[in-house]
């Protein structure tokens, strides 16, 4: 028996050694193939876009280096060789599989699956019934009856699962896929590559391979950790970091989104920030007399100590958007944070029905901004809206019963440059209030009750308890709420876009925010390069403001530990 076990272990070791040799050969082949691919790309006429060529060559160079290193290290049985090989084969298998699915039309045909899905729903219901029948067998005491019921349930589940797959078009799909594969040697090669990568990753992942490398438990756990992290990590790199870097590249071009892009360096950024200040002879002097109107347009004019000045900007709308955004932040942050703090204190009490109020205040946060904005659009209507209706009613009431002589203000909420941004800020603050309240509530509930009890024993009043215990201990929560609210406010878009209807920039551009402006530039005027530059300027602004908040938080002696 012992001999058999030793023989088995020996066989596995031999097998592992064989796989390692195959892995070394595979990585050498990969390195050579990648080198050939890189050489081809250098002289090939495609891809046309510079960024795509650079990216492809960079990936191939990384493959050459990585695969070469993996071959050498695997040959020397270094753990780093296994790690590198696993990473390369895992990524290779994923990439080739995704590419294969793309080329056979899987992703474009997801709609087709959705269209066919309804046909399979009855079978899906039957599948659930089968599983229920199978599970109900466990409750039976009679072994024969239990086995029979489980068998029936299992058979029903398998049958309905297969029927479901046929109903949604599996057979047609198989035919289509096989036909495409047979027709295209390139697809077959891709399939072979996907399988090879997959098999290599599997072989190196198995325990015999780990033993061959003398992998420790800690090293195994690390690999498993990265495996579990990989979906998120890859998602971040592909769908966030990648586009982020791409937009940085685009911001240095005059891209129009249709493949026409010339490298123009910092020109977009220069145009964004280019402003000039010129003195005026009189307050109403024509701008054409003092500014080079081929480059600048008048942004604003002002007077200091009896002297008049005009500020010209190459991109006036950027500065207007920046000013509006900062004003919006100054309104929304206090309006959604300070009331939230007091509301959270109220909601922290243990009176009957409090859960209902907590849910009610949170409701606007989970409602769609679009729906909310459309409702507020009606509320704000100056002629038939409810807000003005109630104001008029209140004014009439006061005049009639209190003998006052108030004038109905008839506020033009969204059609006056003085009130449009305020209207947007009120709506946005109302929506953010609930979420901030819940955050404060969580913070309040983490403060030990014993502190309040001790304070009461010491004779502290409610205001003292609030200012001396609640506020200091709530500082990390407050910091988090402030930072997230500020970032959200700096990125205001949907609120303005929907609420302002046909004219999202508002009267006199009074609701033109930074994100709205970059949206207009990028998606309405085909100026993607400039829009990307605007996005990076906005990022730098948000980053700077957040940094300041972090510094202030640290200087205050409290740290963010949410």
């Amino acid at each position, binding site marked *: 028996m012992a001999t058999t076990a030793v023989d088995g272990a020996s066989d596995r070791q031999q097998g592992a050694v064989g796989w390692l040799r195959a892995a070394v050969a595979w990585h050498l082949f990969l390195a050579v193939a990648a080198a050939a691919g890189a050489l081809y790309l250098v002289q090939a006429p495609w891809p046309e876009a510079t960024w795509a060529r650079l990216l492809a060559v960079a990936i191939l160079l990384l493959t050459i280096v990585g695969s070469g290193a993996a071959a050498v290290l695997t040959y020397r049985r270094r753990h780093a060789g296994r790690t590198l090989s696993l990473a390369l084969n895992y990524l290779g298998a994923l990439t080739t599989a995704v590419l294969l*699915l793309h080329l*056979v*039309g*899987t*992703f*474009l*045909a*997801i*709609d*087709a*699956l959705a*269209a*066919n899905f309804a046909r399979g729903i009855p079978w899906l219901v039957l599948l659930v019934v089968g599983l229920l029948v199978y599970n109900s067998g466990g409750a039976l005491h009679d072994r024969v009856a239990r086995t029979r019921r489980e068998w029936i349930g299992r058979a029903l*589940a*398998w049958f309905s*699962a297969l029927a*479901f*797959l046929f109903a949604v*078009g*599996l057979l*047609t*799909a*198989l035919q289509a*896929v096989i036909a*495409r594969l047979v027709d295209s040697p390139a697809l077959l090669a891709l399939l072979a590559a996907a399988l090879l990568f997959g098999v290599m990753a599997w072989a190196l992942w198995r325990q015999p391979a780990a033993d061959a490398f003398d992998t420790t438990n800690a090293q195994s756990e690390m690999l498993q950790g990265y495996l579990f992290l990989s979906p998120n990590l890859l998602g971040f790199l592909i769908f966030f970091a990648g586009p982020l870097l791409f937009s940085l590249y685009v911001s240095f071009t005059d891209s129009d*989104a*249709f493949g026409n892009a010339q490298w123009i360096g910092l020109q977009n950024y220069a145009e964004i920030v280019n402003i000039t200040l010129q003195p005026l002879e009189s307050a109403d002097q*024509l*701008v*054409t007399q003092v500014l080079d*109107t*081929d480059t600048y*347009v*008048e942004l604003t004019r002002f007077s200091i100590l009896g002297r008049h000045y005009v500020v010209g900007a190459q991109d*006036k709308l950027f500065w207007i958007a920046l000013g509006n955004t900062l004003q919006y932040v100054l309104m929304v942050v206090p309006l959604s944070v300070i009331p939230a703090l007091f509301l959270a204190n109220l909601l922290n009490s243990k009176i009957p029905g409090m859960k209902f109020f907590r849910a009610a205040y949170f409701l606007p946060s989970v409602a769609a901004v679009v729906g909310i904005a*459309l409702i507020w659009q*009606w509320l704000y*209507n*100056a*002629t*038939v809206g409810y807000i003005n209706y109630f104001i008029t009613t209140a004014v009439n009431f006061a005049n009639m019963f209190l003998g006052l002589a108030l004038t109905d203000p008839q506020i*033009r909420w*969204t*059609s*006056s*440059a003085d009130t449009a941004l305020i209207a947007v800020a009120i709506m946005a603050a109302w929506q953010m209030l609930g979420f901030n309240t819940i955050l404060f509530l969580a913070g309040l509930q983490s403060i030990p009750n014993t502190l309040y009890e001790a304070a009461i024993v010491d004779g502290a009043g409610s205001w003292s308890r609030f200012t001396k215990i609640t506020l200091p201990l709530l500082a990390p929560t407050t910091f988090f709420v402030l930072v997230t609210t500020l970032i959200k406010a700096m990125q205001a878009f*949907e609120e303005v876009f*929907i609420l302002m209807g*046909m*004219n999202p*920039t508002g*009267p*006199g*551009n009074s609701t033109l925010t930074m994100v709205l402006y970059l949206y*207009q530039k990028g*998606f*309405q*005027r*085909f100026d*993607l390069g400039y829009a990307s530059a605007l996005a990076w300027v906005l990022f730098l602004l948000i980053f700077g403001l957040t940094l300041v908040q972090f510094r202030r938080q640290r200087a205050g002696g409290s740290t963010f530990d949410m």
Partner: protein
Amino acid sequence: MKRISLILLLILLALTLAACGGDDAPTVDEVEVEDVAEDDIDSETGEVVDEGEDIADEDVTESVDEDMAEDVAEDVGEEVALRWRTRPDNQAEIDVYQSISNSLDDELEGATLVYEPGGSETSSYQDVLKTELAAGTAPDVFWIPGTDIADFAMRDLLLDLSPYAEASGFDVEAFYPGPMFHLTYNPETDQTGEVLWGLPRDVSTFVLYLNMDLINEAGAPDPRELAAAGEWNWDSFLEVATMVDALGDDIYGYGQNAWWGPYGYWINAAGGGFFTEDRTACALDSEESLEGLRFLQSIYQDFDVAVPYGEDAEPPFLAGRVGMFQNGRWATPAMRASADFNWDVVKLPEGPAGPSNWLFWGAYVVNANTEHPEAAWELVQALTTAETQAQVAELGANIPSRVSEEALDAFLTYSPPANNQAFLEGLAENPATEGPLWQGSWPEFDAVMSPALQAVLTGEITVEEFADSVCVEADRTFISGN
């Protein structure tokens, strides 16, 4: 538990695989045709099951160039799927366009049509379309407003249909000349009549929607009678608006929405305009333009008889609080559905420079990257026949774009409003054609003009201040940067 996980995993894999197979709806990929008769298309797979070559290969090759001949040859003998899109204003229009798509699907041999309604509350029709064009996923045929033609054409997003039109002997003069000027404009030579970017879907003009109950209650003269008597001008307009407005604090004599069309009429009717005659520079600071603007400002600021500028005037009009509401034919369905008072329409009043109006239009164009140009051209023609236009016009939202007595007579029968003739009078009386800027950027120009106009109409700046600055900024949006 392992077994259940296994079943779920298998289902997931199989579903992924099933996604490779296509569905009932035709994809954009060409499908080998064996017979293009509808009955021979497998209802389960969308694939064609017989052989055939029904699509005529007749008379199309002689006068077309080689590329086009190749395109035609590709389309002949193949069933192609064409995606097309237009911007509907409501579900009723979506239903009509879908029904048109279904019937054209039967009529057009060799093409399977997929209609896609565009736009929603949260996504502008044009924004979505432009994004799809950039991504290479835009439909084969789509509608765009007249102001977008130049931008799209100069970015090579539209297919020049003139070779196909010439080959089929298509008569472009069957449509109103205003839109056709721009639809045949060649930006490379600055000449019109040399290319064909598309065909107009429909046209529209402005009228004043009247709340006759309010007008009668105010004892004001009936604008329709004034128009019939040739006395419908800015003075009589102001008189009616003032009398209606006097009915109460929450009643308004007049209302318009805040975009370039409504205020543009007042500028045009005074003899001014947005651009110079050759459309290469701003003309908003001309004396005629300023005269129109002064009058419009006085309606808001001096006489104060209008719904505050910038507020949507349609809700108060539908609520019965506005005497006259300036809007296009597209507002008619909402009036029919929601106005529970006695309403009708009247043509716009004559200005100092005589009658004026806008001729609004949009066109069906073909994606420059379509794989089926010949079939797409067939579809564009089919979508703009008198019969198709009549189906859409029946809904009340559009006026046929063909210069055809028959089409216009049919349009007049679609009531209410009783005075449909007012729309046609707008077409006949010197309308300014909505048009793109071939030597500039219309969106950039509008981004300068509209906020400045709004500032005037809300009283934030004077007309003189407007005149001092508006063209300095607006001229930067022309290519020459005059």
